[in-house]
């Protein structure tokens, strides 16, 4: 007889912070106290609050224990489960009110969210198909198989669901095109090549709720007339692959994949294809080539994959998060889906909150939520009392949202209007210490590395832009650089073959738009206002504060600091390598950084 269940978050972040050994301690302690038959330990998918990991939730109370370590995990057993005493030191303390939260229902990070895509992540055992079924899993497939393909597509059109991979194309239209396309066989593909730095919502769904994607792909197969599906997942996601593979096996065993599913005569099966981690393979045409076993490079559209995709056959390709919405739309209807979100972008969006923000992790909110709610209410604000500067969205294809737009409802269209994109939902918060030129350079560097090289504007153009950005950050910027960057950016946008190149200049254009003054400071005054760009920094010693302790001179790796004991020291600027070690080591605040 089971009296308690311990849900241990086994999402990627919690595993990295030691979840496996914490779980081992829990299991050992339960045995030691002889209650292993009364208390069940269940590993779940990501619970979202990644900076609080490893997380253990004790039911039926719902007690939320965070930052559990191998050293204190035994307390959950010996105190909570044996003696009925809540372990105070493992509870979450709300930073503003300093109140202890007992359950996730007491933590603003959770209470403000609307979980649809992530509804099962962290709530069920991803390896248990039964638990998925208990949460209404595979009932949507049953319902869909009783509907005509046209009716299914109509529901999707009515729901207004738009592709969560970034572009926001209406999903129903994609399905309709694939349904109407001539050619056989047809294919269903899931894009799990999540490549934006910092984004991990697709991984979390695949790890935490793999059956929802299998169910959605089977529904798609019925809707467009396909019997074969491919799950394309990047090689860097071994756990997602393992759990998805296991889920496929279970789905076959239960007859949700295979021949004559639920006795209807509909056949469908899924195979996993592993990507080698090339960013460009997130672009749909490149991804399809990769599945075919060819080099992953994009091709001109049209023809679109719906007309000529895998092996030139009609192919439906959607992103993981898009598929994760489908079973619930079929079960609950289009009206239900539209009940949250904005008119033109209904439903929810999962964001990966990262950067200079208190609570990092995965958050799911209605479309149209403001940046202020996301960063300050859910994210808990900026750490260290620093000021908010901007949020970077859409990864290397996106741009920045500044403080002026904190109260703007975020959806596909509003972010586009201010020069960035929703993208897959990466949201990097930048505080006042961030240099926007440096940030743009970082993202541009990413696309330079990831450009596949097929078309010249992307291969050569982004590199030229990057060299200019490097020059600017090195203090070698020249008059006219801003104009040149903008002109080159526009050409790359207009002439690149695929989305990667077309969007690659976005980080630069967006930061020039909102922070041109910072570019000008770098180029004309040779100064980095945020003190980030190393080559533009000058370290000097303030004579009134220097006591001549010699600490800096001993620390300096290039012997640029001279001075006698108890006398003011000097930095030789021609030798200084701007490493900042004197600044770190000085106990008298005598080193000036400007």
């Amino acid at each position, binding site marked *: 007889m089971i009296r308690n269940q311990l849900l241990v978050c086994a999402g990627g972040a919690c595993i990295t912070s030691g979840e496996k050994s914490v779980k081992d301690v829990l299991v050992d302690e339960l045995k030691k106290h002889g209650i292993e038959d009364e208390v069940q330990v269940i590993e779940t998918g990501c619970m979202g609050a990644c900076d609080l990991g490893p997380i253990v939730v004790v039911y039926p109370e719902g007690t939320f224990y965070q930052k559990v370590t191998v050293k204190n995990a035994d307390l959950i057993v010996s105190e909570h489960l044996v003696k009925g*005493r809540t372990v105070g030191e493992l509870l979450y303390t709300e930073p503003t009110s300093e109140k202890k939260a007992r359950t996730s229902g007491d933590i603003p990070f959770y209470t403000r969210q609307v979980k649809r895509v992530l509804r099962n992540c962290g709530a*069920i055992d991803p390896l248990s198909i039964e638990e998925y*079924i208990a949460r209404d899993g595979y009932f949507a497939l049953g319902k869909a198989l009783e509907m005509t393909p046209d009716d299914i597509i109509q529901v999707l059109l009515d729901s207004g669901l738009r592709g969560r991979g970034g572009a926001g194309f209406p999903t129903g239209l994609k399905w309709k095109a694939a349904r109407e396309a001539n050619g056989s066989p047809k294919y269903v593909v899931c894009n799990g090549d999540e490549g934006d730095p910092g984004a991990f919502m697709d991984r979390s769904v695949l790890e935490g709720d793999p059956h929802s994607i299998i169910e959605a792909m089977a529904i798609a197969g019925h809707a467009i007339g396909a019997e074969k599906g491919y799950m394309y997942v990047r090689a860097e996601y071994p756990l997602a692959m393992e759990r998805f593979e296991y889920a496929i096996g279970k789905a076959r065993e239960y007859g949700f994949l295979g021949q004559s599913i639920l006795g209807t005569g509909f056949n469908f099966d899924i195979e996993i294809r592993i990507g080698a981690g090339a960013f460009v393979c997130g672009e749909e045409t490149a991804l399809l080539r990769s599945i075919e076993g060819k080099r992953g490079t994009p091709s001109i559209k049209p023809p679109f994959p719906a007309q000529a995709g895998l092996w030139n056959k009609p192919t439906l390709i959607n992103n993981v998060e898009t598929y994760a919405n489908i079973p619930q739309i079929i079960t609950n209807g289009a009206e239900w889906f539209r009940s949250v979100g904005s008119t033109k972008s209904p439903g929810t969006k999962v964001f990966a909150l990262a950067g200079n923000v208190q609570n990092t992790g995965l958050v799911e909110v209605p479309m149209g939520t403001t940046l202020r709610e996301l960063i300050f209410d859910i994210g808990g604000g900026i750490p260290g009392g620093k000021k908010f500067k901007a949020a970077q969205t859409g990864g290397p294809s996106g741009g920045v949202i500044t403080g002026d737009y904190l109260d703007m409802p975020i959806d596909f269209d509003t972010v586009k209007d201010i020069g960035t994109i929703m993208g897959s939902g990466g949201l990097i918060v930048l505080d006042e210490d961030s240099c926007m030129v440096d940030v743009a350079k970082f993202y541009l560097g990413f696309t330079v590395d990831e450009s596949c090289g097929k078309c010249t504007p992307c291969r050569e153009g982004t590199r030229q832009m990057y060299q200019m950005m490097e020059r600017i950050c090195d203090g070698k910027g020249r008059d006219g650089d801003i104009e040149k960057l903008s002109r080159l950016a526009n050409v790359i946008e207009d002439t690149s073959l695929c989305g990667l190149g077309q969007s690659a200049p976005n980080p630069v254009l967006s930061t020039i738009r909102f922070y041109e003054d910072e570019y000008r400071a770098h180029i004309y005054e040779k100064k980095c206002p945020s003190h980030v760009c190393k080559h533009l920094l000058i370290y000097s010693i303030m004579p009134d504060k220097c006591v001549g302790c010699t600490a800096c001179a001993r620390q300096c790796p290039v012997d640029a600091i001279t001075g006698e004991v108890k006398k003011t020291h000097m930095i030789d600027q021609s030798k200084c390598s701007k490493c900042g070690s004197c600044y770190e080591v000085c106990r008298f605040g005598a080193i000036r950084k400007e």
Partner: protein
Amino acid sequence: MKSLEELKRIKEQTLKEMDLRQAKERGKVIVAMGTCGIAAGAKDALMAIIDELEKADVHDVKVVQSGCMGLCDKEPTVEVSMKDQPAVIYGDVNDANARRIVREHVQGGNVVADLVIKRENI
């Protein structure tokens, strides 16, 4: 899996196993698990309560543990706190008494007068 009926059966069956994780709104039974409680047999009371609730197919009442309530000579003690009703603390709850409390109070709505040691707001 050949039919939706079969799917429904799996759902019902698994929901029972996941029962501890569902929101339970009707009330809660708190078993004091201090050293004194455990020594007096609180574990047996706890398991008897869970067993009796399961037998009666009651799924909207939470069974949780707490530390010592301070009434060490009356242990094991159990507090029954049903929604919109004053909480009642029972003493000397052995296996049989625990089952009575579930049947008469939690299910029947009648306080088990002879076991009461304290009632809220009286």
